[in-house]
């Protein structure tokens, strides 16, 4: 009886805690966004973050896109050849990249490269009282630290996605045309004809939504490290970073489903 009572009340406590954190995270985002209207954003900081999120991710995005495009083309080729519809290869590769794989894979790469680094950086700043120091200097940390990162992510992720899509289609071309020997014209025609502007738009809306989540969540975990972690030290930072990465990936995929179902 007692054990039952305990496990039910544990469930209640966990639920309350999760609702609390969702509320806090929402408040956190609102504070970041509203700081946009209370003063000038440091342009220098935004540039710095675009460099970190955009430029520094470019190589890894290109490599990942190339192999993703190649493997997608390989799998589709194997499937389509059984139906005698190999001429659909270009359409299939382009559609799956632009609508789904491009935004999702780009977001995953950005989570791995930027989300984890951001969370640990913000967590260490919290640990070293840097946010307290900013408060005491009458500097708005939401505007000075958080906003440039969020804006840069919203700006960079769609662009990285576009790069991913194009390079991926190129990778598909290599497999389809040079390895499997499909005609280049059929592949390119398939790509050009199948994709409508709406497909591109849906992909871009997805990457914008992903950009928001994959920056917001690591920032939240880092900024509230002292509330969420039992241990504030190095262990706390590493736990927080792990949680932030897992959570960003899950919420990103969840939002992917939501946006896809709304768009279809």
């Amino acid at each position, binding site marked *: 009886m007692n054990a039952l009572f305990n496990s039910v009340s544990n469930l209640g406590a966990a639920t309350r805690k999760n609702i609390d954190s969702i509320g806090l995270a929402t408040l956190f985002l609102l504070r970041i966004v509203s700081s946009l209207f209370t003063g000038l954003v440091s342009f220098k900081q935004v540039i710095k973050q675009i460099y970190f999120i955009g430029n520094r991710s470019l190589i890894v995005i290109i490599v990942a896109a190339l192999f993703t495009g190649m493997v997608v083309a390989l799998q589709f080729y194997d499937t389509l050849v059984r139906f005698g519809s190999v001429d659909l290869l270009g359409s299939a590769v382009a559609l799956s990249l632009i609508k789904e794989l491009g935004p999702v894979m780009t977001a995953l790469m950005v989570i791995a490269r930027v989300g984890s680094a951001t969370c640990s950086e913000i967590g260490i700043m919290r640990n070293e009282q840097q946010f307290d120091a900013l408060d005491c200097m009458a500097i708005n940390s939401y505007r000075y630290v958080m906003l440039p990162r969020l804006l840069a992510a919203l700006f960079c992720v769609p662009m990285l996605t576009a790069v991913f899509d194009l390079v991926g289609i190129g990778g598909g071309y290599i497999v389809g045309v040079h390895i499997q020997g499909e005609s280049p014209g059929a592949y390119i025609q398939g790509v050009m004809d199948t*994709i409508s502007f709406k*497909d591109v738009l849906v992909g871009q809306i997805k990457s914008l939504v992903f950009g928001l989540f994959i920056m917001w969540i690591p920032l939240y975990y880092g900024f509230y490290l002292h509330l969420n972690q039992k241990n504030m030290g190095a262990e706390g930072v590493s736990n927080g970073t792990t949680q932030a990465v897992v959570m960003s990936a899950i919420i990103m995929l969840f939002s992917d489903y939501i946006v896809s179902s709304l768009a279809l």
Partner: protein
Amino acid sequence: MKNNYVNFLVGLFVLFGIGALVFMSITIGGASVSNSGNYTLVAKFENSSGLKEGAFVEMSGVRVGLIQSINYDPQAYESVVKISLDNEITVPDDSIASIRTSGIIGDRFVKISTGGSEVNMADGEEFIETESSISIEELISKYMFSQDK
């Protein structure tokens, strides 16, 4: 100096990214920047099974337009398909609209076989002659049942 270098690289990234985005939207996605306008033709089919909104319209094997809407006309017991075509594309008024399938499992699309008339169809006009979908299931069953006999 170092800061300028970073600015330059960021500038390059922005140009590259926007370039990729614009290329994808316009070339691949076919977002028309200078829209020359569209006009609509109507084709009534006895059976438009398998045809979807957004499917292609081909003339001589070239994609020239899209299916705008598909509705059922309860009076005529027919399917009313609206076809959106670019203003540059002209269709003689004795052309035939037929529903075809690309490959075995491919999508249905509308094929316009051009006629010889010198008068072109105007916005909102209706095709005189149409050919409905050929259902693979029907074809197969016909074939199988004829074998039985």
